[in-house]
């Protein structure tokens, strides 16, 4: 039933029903959330760097159940695109593609660092800008990007050694926290989230979709080439 405004025209309260299912597997946080375009209805996160494949689907089932929703009501599936360790990262993107296909809805991705930056900046209005969001890239390196506010990435994502992060900017994320001694404890924003929780990812995606801004297809951001060398001549077996 349409509300009627003063001019007798139907007042368009809500054009379409929105239910964004978002999840991220680019960090040790295996995290899922449902967002209705206005708020996070449910979020579930388990920190485990080694079990993305086992934990993600049960996490998705939990948020759908907690929100009292049905998967059939989901209108878009969004996965964190990374960067992040590849084996876990692919679980999220494959799941988004496959789930969206069976539900007949679009699948998208959002840069994982964007979600981390969005969560950090919306929770810390006093956060000095610009700032850097960083996650663990293993091999003593971090994935990072530089932001001028909660929604604007100025450069990145890149992979770098922690000592090579831009000097003097405030830092958020586990990539900064785990190298506090290298980057300087004082630069790390207190109270900012270490991981990109799916609630933030869903909220950012919902904002961008509502604004008519295009989202990326569900493809991973790989910042390193596969480790593989072309072999030389066969090794001699005789002395």
């Amino acid at each position, binding site marked *: 039933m349409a509300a009627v405004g003063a001019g007798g025209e139907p007042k368009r309260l809500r054009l379409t029903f929105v239910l964004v299912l978002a999840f991220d597997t680019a960090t040790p946080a295996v995290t899922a959330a449902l967002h209705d375009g206005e708020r996070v209805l449910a979020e579930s996160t388990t920190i485990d760097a080694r079990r993305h494949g*086992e934990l*993600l689907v049960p996490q998705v089932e939990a948020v759908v159940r907690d929100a009292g929703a049905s998967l059939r009501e989901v209108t878009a599936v969004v996965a964190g695109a990374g960067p992040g360790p590849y084996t876990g990262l692919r679980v999220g993107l494959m799941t988004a593609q496959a*789930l969206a*296909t069976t539900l007949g809805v679009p699948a998208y991705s959002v840069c994982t660092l964007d979600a981390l930056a969005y969560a950090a900046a919306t929770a810390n209005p006093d956060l000095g800008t610009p700032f850097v969001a960083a996650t663990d890239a293993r091999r003593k390196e971090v994935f990072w990007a530089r932001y001028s506010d909660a929604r604007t990435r100025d450069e990145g994502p890149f992979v770098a050694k922690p000592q090579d992060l831009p000097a003097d900017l405030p830092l958020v994320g586990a990539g900064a926290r785990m190298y506090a001694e290298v980057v300087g404890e004082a630069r790390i924003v207190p109270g900012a989230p270490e991981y990109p929780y799916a609630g933030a990812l869903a909220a950012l995606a919902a904002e961008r979709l509502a604004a008519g801004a295009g989202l990326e297809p569900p493809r991973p951001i790989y910042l390193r080439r596969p480790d593989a060398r072309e072999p030389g001549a066969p090794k001699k*077996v*005789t002395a």
Partner: protein
Amino acid sequence: MTDEPLVLGIETSCDETGVGIVRGHTLLANAIASSVDEHARFGGVVPEVASRAHLEAMTPTVERALEQAGLKFGDIDAVAVTAGPGLAGALLVGVAAAKAYALGLGVPLYGVNHLAAHVAVDELEHGPLPRPCIALLVSGGHSSLLLVPDVAREVISLGSTVDDAAGEAFDKVARVLGLPFPGGPHIDRAAREGSGTAVAFPRGKYDDGTLDFSFSGLKTAVARWVEAKRAAGETIHVPDVAASFQEAVVDVLTRKALDACRRYDVHDLLIGGGVAANSRLRALAQERCDAAGVRLRVPRPGLCTDNGAMVAALGADLLAAGVSPSAHDLPADSSMPITTVNV
């Protein structure tokens, strides 16, 4: 037959993204995307390259399979997936896809053993498996002899390679001979112009009384032989070396397979896996089975190499046997033992 359930099967344990659809034992679709060309210059499968390719290929390959079968997603009654053994990162892409399809469609999920699927696939070509049968599985990653009382419920390991898989030996010998990767088809082709008795290469564990295999010594013997000839300035007749090497491999494989049939008094032998596409293995196995009164079953080459139809076939067997589906926290298990048919 049309009331049998439709099963979607997904296989990503190595470098093939396989998606198959079956209705019971009827094959409806078998779509494959291979990343083998991307690995060729590295002389072997690079796990990260394979995993990336699976993620790229999965959605289009599933669409192709549905199209081949003339079906819609909503028609699928169950999803089966290779949960192991195989490359961990590669398996995980297939398992993630299968879980999401099962979740989105609201149908049961079956995580299955890759090796058992290589056995079950023959049902698509030759009907129900004799119970029991002996299975010889030979590929780039595996060389196993199995006693199969019931592929949906019980598979017993009789022996396996103690070092290299048979297909791995083919790849390594091909490299020594300057033939491209993967070595199997190239050695098979070269060997047709050569003599299998030209060089007496060693047959590892030939008379040791076990049903295990060893191909590492053979591979090294071929390399030594080739190096010695080259050092002496002699030219190598590649077809003779290829044929003699191949003869040594298939001699051991078929001897042990028939030994297993004798020991367990089983009269049906099934050969599966990528190396089962080898023409000399098929010919010698047939010859020896005929002499021993054993019936031989070998699926056509397209079903021997890794594919999704084999996974769907095993899934259909599990469904028919009333086996419980897998939980949604199903892990990929890169070293899943052969005795585990499903998880």
